[in-house]
């Protein structure tokens, strides 16, 4: 089973990297970029019988820092 885990900063948390990306896009002349937020994509190859609860635990214990980040799990069709 393949899953993609998207780790993003919580709303309201200042994202210096997103801000720099935003400025850089504007610097390149792209108009209409309202905001940019940077996050992480982590792809896992898991045993077929892996439970959702176990995946959640992986995210909360290590993959995301719940103080500042959220995560979203997406299962990838085989």
């Amino acid at each position, binding site marked *: 089973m393949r899953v993609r885990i998207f780790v993003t900063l919580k709303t309201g*948390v200042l994202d210096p990297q997103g801000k720099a990306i935003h400025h850089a896009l504007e610097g390149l002349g792209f108009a209409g970029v309202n905001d940019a937020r940077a996050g992480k994509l982590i792809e896992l190859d898991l045993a077929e019988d892996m439970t959702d609860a176990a995946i959640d635990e992986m995210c909360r*214990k290590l993959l995301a820092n719940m103080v*500042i980040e959220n995560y979203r799990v997406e299962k990838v069709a085989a």
Partner: protein
Amino acid sequence: MIVFPGSNCDRDMAEAIRLTSGRAPAMIWHREAELPEGLDLIAVPGGFSYGDYLRSGAMAAQSPVMRAVAAAAERGVTVLGVCNGFQVLTEAGLLPGALMRNAGIRFVCRDVPLKVENSQSAFTSHYAAGEEILVPVAHHDGNYQADAETLDRLEGEGRVVFRYADSVNGSARGIAGILNAAGNVLGMMPHPERAVEPAHGRTDGRRLFEGLLEADGQPA
């Protein structure tokens, strides 16, 4: 002295401890699941443990030695985490909040003025409350963040020990160093171990170690 792969301030810290206490600390590798008996102090050094992979301090926080550090902290052993050590302590849940990328994006490496907010802790008894000291910082992820409720609690309980006197990295309320609720764990981004002898150009960090040496703590 805890040593992770990628630690690079462990020897500076060990030297600061040796200079002020006359005793060289044991260097403990991250794979050790048990710490020596009779601990006076656990130091978690700066550097780039595990290459800062995933998040600064995230991998080190899961290492076997950190479970032993958490258990010792629970017993009341004094724990000092500096720079990456502070990041490791927050990731391990020994201190609240998180250290994010500096608001200005850039790595900051310079002496910064710090205000000593609490001189009652074991770490700061040789400083005066409100005193301003000069200590170097060298970090990319020193931007301390926590929710407003946590920040209020830290302030209300006197757990904000050091505050930046200038704008350095975007830290919430200028926080540079905090204590845990019991007061035996300190995490700080500035490097007191880099300011202990005249050859360093400044000695304001020395009193932190001298204060610890004098603190009335029995080895736990």
